[in-house]
């Protein structure tokens, strides 16, 4: 099954119509629609449709129709996946952006636009998830203008996510202006790159760690093997690794599924970039494993190891502990495939970690702890599918998978 938006390769410059050229990849509307009926699109469309029905149900009849509606576990999959798991991978924009623009690592330039797009979409859809989950989503701007609660970690998260979403929109906009042929404004935005990147570092480091700090307020509820005062820093470190491995995994995927959109500069440098990121991730995860171990020691939570939750913790921990060695070995023997596989496994480890903290190991003492309602799972799946479709739509049109200098 191919993920490409339409089956055929676009026709070169046949259409005189600007809209056809920009929106319909050079096809007429009729042709374009006809070509949209690929197996992948049909499947994706079905998921989105079912999800949309549930979302509609939520906005007509209330949140209890699609969630557990629990007063012990108020956050389910929508935030557990959409916010707490999605955002660490969206660190891609700030990590790669910093490497390229601040530290001047030319080597990573081919992937920087893709990394920024992935970051931008990650944040955008975190907000989408939030809008579905909030009790009164039409008040989402309240913490910015109406009423302030600066003593709350969530206040910091709200401000930083919204500011950073704006920053990322600016950071990504040159690719969009490129697509629209707006050269002047593109130049103007590119002039802000350094300022935007530094703003991105400030906002990202703080709110990535703040997502962990949010759970500092629930010491009795989060299992002692996960609750630690190091939570903010553990979250920040995994987010840095998460952003990097996300770039590796997505780069591999687009190379397989969207071959036509990959520019030579991107394709030819990807192996070296992957190995470079693998080396970095190996080191980052070593520090993570060290800090995670000392967090257990610091909180003196060893006593919980030989319990069902302890075994579950060990599984998560072993996965994280194995990863740095896999990356190290993969880079050493220059096996790009192994690094890519390790990157995928890192994503799995981070997903498990975030779901543990936000859902599975949360309220561990309560009897009959339900995880989530199946409809919520479908909604999450459907929103993620939309995210993939939007990503594909953009990549099909804008010069994302290329080194800037080649545009």
């Amino acid at each position, binding site marked *: 099954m191919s993920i490409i938006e339409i089956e055929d390769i676009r026709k070169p410059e046949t259409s005189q119509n600007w809209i056809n050229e920009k929106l319909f990849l050079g096809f007429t509307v009729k042709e374009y629609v006809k070509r949209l009926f690929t197996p992948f699109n049909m499947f994706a469309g079905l998921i989105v449709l079912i999800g949309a029905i549930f979302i509609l149900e*939520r*906005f*007509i009849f*209330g*949140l*209890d129709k699609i969630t557990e*509606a629990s*007063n*012990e576990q*108020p*956050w389910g999959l929508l935030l557990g996946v959409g916010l707490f798991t999605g955002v660490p991978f969206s660190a891609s924009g700030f990590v790669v952006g910093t490497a390229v623009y*601040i*530290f*001047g690592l030319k080597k990573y330039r081919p992937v920087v636009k893709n990394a920024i797009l992935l970051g931008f979409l990650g944040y955008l859809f975190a907000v989408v998830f939030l809008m579905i989950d*909030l*009790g*009164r*989503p039409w*008040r*989402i701007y*309240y*913490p910015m203008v109406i*009423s*302030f*609660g*600066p*003593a*709350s*970690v*969530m*206040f*910091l*998260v*709200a*401000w*930083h996510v919204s500011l950073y979403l704006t920053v990322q929109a600016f950071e990504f906009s040159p690719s969009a202006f490129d697509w629209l042929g707006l050269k002047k404004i*593109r*130049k103007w935005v*590119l*002039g*802000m*790159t*350094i*300022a*935007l*990147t*530094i*703003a991105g570092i*400030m906002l990202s*480091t*703080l709110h990535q760690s*703040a997502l962990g*700090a*949010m759970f*500092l*307020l*629930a*010491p*009795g509820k989060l299992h002692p093997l996960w609750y630690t005062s190091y939570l*903010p820093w553990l979250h920040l470190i995994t987010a840095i690794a998460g952003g990097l491995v996300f770039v590796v995994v997505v780069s591999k995927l687009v190379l397989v599924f969207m071959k036509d959109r990959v520019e030579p500069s991107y394709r030819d440098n990807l192996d070296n970039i992957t190995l470079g990121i693998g080396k970095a991730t190996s080191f980052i995860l070593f520090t993570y494993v060290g800090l995670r171990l000392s967090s257990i020691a610091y909180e003196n939570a060893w006593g919980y190891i030989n319990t069902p939750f302890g075994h579950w913790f060990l599984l998560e921990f072993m996965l994280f502990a194995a990863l740095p060695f896999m990356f190290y070995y993969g880079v050493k023997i220059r096996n790009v495939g192994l690094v890519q596989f390790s990157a995928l496994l890192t994503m799995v480890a981070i997903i498990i970690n975030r779901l543990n903290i936000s859902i599975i190991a949360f309220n561990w003492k309560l009897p009959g702890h339900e995880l989530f309602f199946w409809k919520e799972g479908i909604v999450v799946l459907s929103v993620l599918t939309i995210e993939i479709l939007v990503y594909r739509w953009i990549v099909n049109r804008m010069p994302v998978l290329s080194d800037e200098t080649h545009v």
Partner: protein
Amino acid sequence: MPVVQLIHVKDVTDRQGVNNMTMSRRRFVKLGGALVAACIAGTTTASASQSFSGYPDRYGMLSDLTRCIGCRRCEAACNKAYNLPEPEIPFEDESVFEEKRKPYVADVQSYTAVNRYDVNGKPVYRKVQCMHCEEPACVSACFVSALKKSPEGPVTWDEKVCIGCRYCITACPFYVPAFEYSSTFSPKIQKCFMCYERIMDGIVPACAEACPVEAITFGKRSKLLKLARTRIWGEPDRYIDHVYGEKEVGGTGWMYISGVPFSQLGFPMDLGTIAYPEFTRDFLSLVNLTLVTWPAIFGGIYLMTKNREEITGEKPDEPETEGKV
């Protein structure tokens, strides 16, 4: 946004020629802009309040569990005072005691519940409701300040600003706040408000007024604490020597005295005496520091890499637009 404006000004005034002057005005202005943004963001995330000894003369409640007879008139009075819907099981029906209600059974139809515990063959009744902490976790969680600790003592909630994020529910160590999931357009946070309006009008909260055996006493917290100690001292055989809520989570507005250990009545015993806002205070205090330090570090590093290139005569390694037209 000042960053945008500043950089706009700079970009218009500068052109190609300045490109080779490393620490040019444009770069300086650019970093300055980032710093301004940092300060703006910084002021909005001011850290939490410093150690707080509580509002003077705040009110509280004292539940004497040795007196409670489980008549549930407090529940009925609360229901009436807040115009809550009729309960499925009438207030006179003792079958409700078969399961433990609130906080472990999600329930937005009531603000309080009396549960029965069997201790050494004797029934002991415990009223559950918001504890009105001295420094509440929910208040420090609320990022729109909908939840507030009022100077009078009750923890209040402002429907006008609540956005329904439910962080208060996540944070509350007593599992008290409930969310009206079934409401699409005005879902409320529901919990006991210690009859804030009645207190402001000079009337005793409904439950305390309705209690036929004076198991619930309303008054200034400082005086209630003395009353609790007096009772324990006066009848050491009747009470255990513990005022629940005196120190738990930094002190609560609602306190309990009992004849049997609180651990046998479902009270959480592992909450500690640290006020919950303390758990995030350290983190929040780092915010401003980070916002100022990062631009210094990364702006500095950026300029160092630039400088190196100029000295060695390499082609500047930066986004293409940084200079070229």
